[in-house]
């Protein structure tokens, strides 16, 4: 269900945050890769067990894709300085993710640069 490296990352983050979001396997994310997504927030959901961000990203060919980015629980995010109002639809952000290994438009959250230039991590 989980690769050893990703288990270590997930558990390490959990211990740091005091609460994890081990709702599902992380085997499909490439923890060795950080991919930056510059785009516009379409949706930000503040909920358990996972918060998520949906970002519209326009690629080199002018095609716009919707990326799904899953974060940890709100409890984790609060400890990292987030609030439910941190992101809003229409915000221009740069989100860093560990992308899906399949090439699908999704990733596990690493950090975000908010419109005011602030960088927030996930735990």
């Amino acid at each position: 269900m989980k690769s050893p490296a990703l288990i270590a990352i997930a558990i390490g983050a959990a211990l740091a945050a005091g609460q994890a979001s081990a709702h599902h396997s992380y085997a499909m994310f490439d923890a060795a890769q950080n991919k930056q997504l510059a785009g516009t927030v379409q949706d930000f959901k503040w909920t358990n067990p996972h918060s998520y961000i949906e970002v519209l990203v326009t690629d080199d060919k002018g095609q716009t894709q919707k990326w799904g980015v899953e974060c940890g629980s709100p409890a984790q995010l609060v400890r990292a300085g987030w609030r439910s109002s941190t992101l809003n639809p229409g915000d221009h952000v740069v989100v860093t993710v560990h992308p899906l290994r399949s090439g699908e438009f999704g990733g596990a959250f690493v950090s975000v640069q908010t419109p005011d230039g602030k960088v927030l991590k996930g735990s």
Partner: protein
Amino acid sequence: MSRLPIALGAAAAACAFMGAPLAQAQQAQAEVPQLGALAPENLAKKRPKAAFDLTGTWFVDTKKASFKFGPAYPKFLPEAQKEYDAGVKATAEHRAYKDYIGQCYPAGMPMIMTRVWPIAMVQLPTVIYMVSGFENAFRAIYLDGRPHTDPDLVVRSFNGESIGHWEGDTLVVDTNAFTPEHHTIDVGIPISDQFHMVERLRLLDKGQSLEIAYTMTDPRMWEGEWKSLHYWRRVDDQDITEVECLPDLDQHLPATQSKLNVR
């Protein structure tokens, strides 16, 4: 004064009124129903003092032991071996194998205990209630001397039916009556309806650490006993919250929707 005789008397009177033979009414009186764990009469009964009180919020201590229950694994029988091998292969390919929890099925025992979320535990003389922060999964460990429910009556569940008793400084908990469908351990290791576990709980470090030694058997899935040792630490600065796994939330999570899931 106990309310039980009054209730039984009323039941007997009702049977007599309906024309039932007196013998049936007497039989009904003989079958004293189990008092609920929260019944004042049950709570007030004299019992040996509990060796410890688990009341508090606990968090699995992955510095001391993994959240997984193996390795070491027992010798699997063919059905479990096939699933275990498929899980190992999928993991090597960075795929999620039969990740039922990700698809919103309950984690079930034993995985719910180590799911890396806080667990609230409330101990009374008759019962220990455990509610996991992960999807608010619920366990009751009965301490009031009741036996396991008749197998022909019990309603099987993901967390099973737990009966505990004290052996010195150790709480020994016997759990059975599991539902095996969509219920696995670690990566896809299946259980059958014969799955059974014994947990031996001890408090360490002046009550700040909880140790549970698991012994799990399933004669349809593996040979002998599968043993695993785990720890939790008190987290007095945390509470559990409402957590639901919702299908429409899952639709927004790339991990659960990815084609890298082996379902």
